[in-house]
């Protein structure tokens, strides 16, 4: 069966800058595919090409079986797009925004009206339905944006960093709404900077960096590459670091690592809570001034550290 999204060798350049350097993506129908990467990795460019907004300089892509360059209108009939900035009209009300886009999908005035009411209800925007969007909170705007993008029940959805900048409650609510779309049978391609988000939502993840896919797999496969939870111990004085390192090194199999400032020692945590208790008990008689002690889940930085040997800071130059 034809996959919902199939892209081969996507290449795009802006002047001297190569935004995409041969991206391959295949997403079977009904799957949630996460594209994970730092700012400037090429996530948005990929989404824009797949959603017919940009024409690639090389490679080809098919969405719902239609060529994004040769038959953009057929692609547009099948997709919904929610971008990074909540692309809704601030001077219209929530209801007017939904009806406008419904009408532009050519679903007919009556259907557009009914779908708008249905979505306002489902996205908890009924009370705000007749207020202009300018008065909405960030979370409400994103919910409306997502509602607008699914008004035509698209078979394929592109969500470009749908939760960036949102608080935890809004993020959880949005995740729930994305899961509902998957349950109805939609294929979802979502980009994110957060490993946790990809982990929560995606069946498969592609890690993208410098315009290339540098790793692909299920969340579990990726995490296996990165390692699990880390225990981090931060001390006040450099003189205590060697003792702490030696002590933690005895508790685990992998060698401990030390942070850039030399004050934080990290070890992979294999035994969960037991490991934390052992470490705390072992540290106590040492008498070192411990300023911070805790566990940390692997972050995007850890993924990049494991895959490329560098961290995913935005200004990072690609090797």
């Amino acid at each position, binding site marked *: 069966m034809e996959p919902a999204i199939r892209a081969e060798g996507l290449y795009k350049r802006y002047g001297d800058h190569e935004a995409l350097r041969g991206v391959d993506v295949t997403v079977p129908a009904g799957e949630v595919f996460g594209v994970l990467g730092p700012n400037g990795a090429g996530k948005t460019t990929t989404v824009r090409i797949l959603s017919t907004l940009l024409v690639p300089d090389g490679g080809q892509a098919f969405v719902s079986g239609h060529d994004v360059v040769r038959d953009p209108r057929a692609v547009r009939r099948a997709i919904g797009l929610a971008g*990074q900035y909540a692309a809704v009209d601030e001077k219209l009300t929530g209801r007017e925004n939904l009806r*406008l886009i419904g009408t*532009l999908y050519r679903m007919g005035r009556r259907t557009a009206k009914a779908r708008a009411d249905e979505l306002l209800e489902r996205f908890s925007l009924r009370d705000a339905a007749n207020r202009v969007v300018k008065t909405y909170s960030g979370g409400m705007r994103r919910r409306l944006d997502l509602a607008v993008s699914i008004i035509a029940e698209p078979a394929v959805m592109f969500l470009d960093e749908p939760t960036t900048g949102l608080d935890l409650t809004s993020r959880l609510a949005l995740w729930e709404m994305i899961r509902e779309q998957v349950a109805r*049978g939609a294929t979802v391609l979502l980009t994110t900077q957060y490993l946790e988000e990809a982990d929560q939502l995606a069946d498969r993840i592609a890690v993208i960096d410098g315009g290339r896919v540098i790793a692909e797999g299920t969340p579990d496969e990726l995490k296996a590459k990165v390692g699990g939870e880390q225990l981090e111990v931060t001390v006040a004085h450099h003189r205590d670091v060697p003792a702490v390192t030696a002590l933690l090194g005895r508790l685990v199999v992998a060698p401990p690592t030390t942070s850039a400032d030399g004050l934080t020692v990290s070890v992979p945590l294999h035994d969960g809570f037991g490991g934390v208790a052992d470490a705390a008990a072992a540290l106590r008689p040492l008498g070192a001034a411990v300023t911070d002690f805790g566990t940390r889940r692997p972050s995007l930085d850890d993924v990049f550290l494991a895959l490329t040997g560098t961290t995913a800071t935005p200004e990072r130059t690609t090797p």
Partner: protein
Amino acid sequence: MTTITSTPLVPVAPPALAGAASDTAALFARHVRHIARTPEKLLGVTLMPVAYVVIFGVLFGAAIALPGGSSYGEYLMAGIFTQTMLSTVSSTALGVADDLGNGLVDRFRSLPMSQGAVLLARTASNLVLSLVSITVMALVGLLIGWRVSAGAAAALGAVGLLLLFGFAMSWLGALIGLVVRGAEAISAVAFLIVMPLTFLSNAFIPLNGLPAWLRAVCEWNPISSVVAACRELFGNPAPAGDSFPAAHPIPMAVALTLAVLLVTAPLAVRAYRSAVAR
């Protein structure tokens, strides 16, 4: 697993003129709501021109005498009407750039809708604002002594020409907005276009006293043709010229305005079709 292979809510009928018309109508309604919800915008397009009518018409009109002794205030009205239509360049450019910047253009471009509808709805809705401006200015002009003396049909023709010119300037603005994008840069570019066009024309000054070369430049300026055509259609004083554009203001005004429209509209739609937010 998949229960949907195509989207039943979206018709698969090929794009037709009817579809484009319905898209344009929906987006036109959007802009009309904007106008109703931004009273400051309505004030902008009415108060400014009214201020011009009063300041130029009353103050300068009293101080300046035209060759032949006709009223400078009456002479000015067509110039102020035309200048107000020129101001649509920057307002359209800013509106288009705003839609582009906040991602709305991305959204519209990802929809199976007519690609020309977004710009057409905006430029067409500007006609509403232009008509409001013209009406208010005309009323104030009539109050301070401006008269229409070539008949109602000709006066309506002048209004029609002004709207057509405003429509063309709106498309020029759309093109500038899509290409230039930044609000400050747009203001600068619009100023650089509008100012020389306005002042190197017969909008505010009779051209008789100018050196021959400068006079030729001014006479061939499309603004001069539009202004002169309006003067003729309103029956306001207009020193005759013997150059081709000065002698045939109405056909020249229509032809030049249509030429601007035929160049800028396709270019603007083309720019729109590849525009994405940054």
